[in-house]
C-alpha cells in the first residue's frame, strides 16, 4: 500500500487510538484488579471476624449447657438431662469444630491458621473431657473428670478468645490493606495515564513532522521561484501526494528554465540579425 497522506493520517490516528485503547484497557484492568483484591481482602477479614465471634458464642453456649447438665443430672435423671443439655452441648462443640476448620482454611496467615487450628484441637479435647465428666457425674465419681473438664473448658475458652482476637486483627488488617491498595492505585493510574499521554504526543509529533517538513520545503521553493530565483532544487521527501507535488513543481521549474533559455536565445539571435543586415 502506498504511503499517501491519507493512509498516513488514517494509520497514524488509528495507531494513536489503538494505543490509547490499550493504555485505557491497562488502566481499567489495573483499577479493577486492585478493587477485586481489596474486596477479597475485606471479605476474608470480615468473614474471619464473624466466624470467630460465632465460635465464641457457641463456646459460651456449650459451657452453659454443660454446667446446667452437671447441676441438673441428679434432679432430672441422666437420660432426660442428656437429651436436654448434653446433646445440645455436643452440637455446639461440633459447630465450633466445623467453624474453626472453615476459618483455618480462609485465614490469610500461618499465625491465624494456627490460632483456629488450636480451637479445633481444644474443642475436640473439650468434647472428650465433657463426655468423661458427664459419665462421672452420672455415676457420682466426678472428682478427677470434673477437674479435667474444667481444664479443657478453660483451654477452649482461651483458644476461642485467641480466635476472636485473630478475627478482629484480620478485619483490621484488611482495612489497612484496602488503604494500602487505594494509595497504590493512585500512582498506578496517574503513571498509566501519563504513559498514554506521552505515547500519543510522540505519535502526533512524528505524524506532524512527516507532513509538515516536506510542505515547508515546498513553501520555501515556491517563495524563491515567485521571486525569480530558478536555481533551486526540489527535494522529494516522501512517496506520497506531497512527493508527487514536489515532482510536478520540479517539472514546472525545469520547463520555465528551458523556455526562458529559449526566449533568451531567440532574443540574442534577433539582436544579432540587424548587425548582419548592416
Amino acid at each position, binding site marked *: 500500500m502506498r504511503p499517501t497522506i491519507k493512509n498516513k493520517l488514517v494509520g497514524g490516528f488509528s495507531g494513536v487510538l489503538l494505543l490509547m485503547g490499550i493504555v485505557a484497557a491497562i488502566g481499567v484492568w489495573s483499577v479493577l484488579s486492585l478493587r477485586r483484591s481489596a474486596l477479597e481482602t475485606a471479605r476474608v477479614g470480615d468473614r474471619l471476624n464473624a466466624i470467630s465471634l460465632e465460635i465464641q458464642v457457641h463456646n459460651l453456649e456449650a459451657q452453659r449447657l454443660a454446667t446446667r447438665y452437671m447441676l441438673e443430672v441428679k434432679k432430672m435423671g441422666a437420660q432426660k438431662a442428656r437429651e436436654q443439655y448434653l446433646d445440645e452441648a455436643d452440637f455446639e462443640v461440633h459447630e465450633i469444630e466445623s467453624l474453626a476448620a472453615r476459618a483455618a482454611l480462609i485465614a490469610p496467615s500461618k499465625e491465624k491458621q494456627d490460632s483456629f487450628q488450636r480451637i479445633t484441637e481444644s474443642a475436640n479435647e473439650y468434647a472428650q473431657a465433657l463426655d468423661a465428666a458427664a459419665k462421672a457425674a452420672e455415676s457420682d465419681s466426678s472428682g478427677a473428670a470434673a477437674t479435667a473438664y474444667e481444664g479443657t473448658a478453660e483451654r477452649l475458652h482461651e483458644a476461642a478468645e485467641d480466635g476472636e482476637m485473630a478475627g478482629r486483627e484480620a478485619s483490621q488488617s484488611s482495612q489497612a490493606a484496602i488503604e494500602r491498595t487505594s494509595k497504590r492505585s493512585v500512582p498506578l493510574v496517574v503513571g498509566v495515564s501519563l504513559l498514554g499521554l506521552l505515547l500519543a504526543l510522540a505519535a502526533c509529533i512524528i505524524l506532524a513532522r512527516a507532513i509538515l517538513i516536506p510542505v515547508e520545503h515546498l513553501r520555501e521553493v515556491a517563495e524563491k521561484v515567485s521571486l525569480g530565483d530558478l536555481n533551486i*532544487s526540489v527535494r522529494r521527501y516522501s512517496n506520497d501526494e506531497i512527493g508527487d507535488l514536489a*515532482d*510536478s513543481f*520540479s*517539472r*514546472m521549474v*525545469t*520547463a520555465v*528554465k*528551458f*523556455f526562458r*533559455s*529559449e526566449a533568451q536565445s531567440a532574443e540574442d539571435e534577433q539582436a544579432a540579425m540587424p548587425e548582419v543586415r548592416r
Partner: protein
Amino acid sequence: MSVYDKVLVISKQYLGPAAEKFIQRQCKHIKTEPTMLTATHLEQLAWSSKNAAGLYMDESKAAELAQKIMSLK
C-alpha cells in the same frame, strides 16, 4: 507508438510542457528529424539529452532521463 512518441512520454515526466521542444532541439543536435528517430539514434540522443537537461535540472535527474531513454533500446 513511434520511438519519438516513447521518448516524448519519458521526457514529459522531467520537462513537462518543455519536453516536445527539448527533444526536437536534441534531434537537431544529432542531425535527425523527430519523425525519423529510430533505436539506433537513442544512444546519441540520451547523451545529448543528459548534457542539455543538466542545464535545467539536477545532474542526477538528467542522468536518470538519459538512462530511461537508453532503456528504450
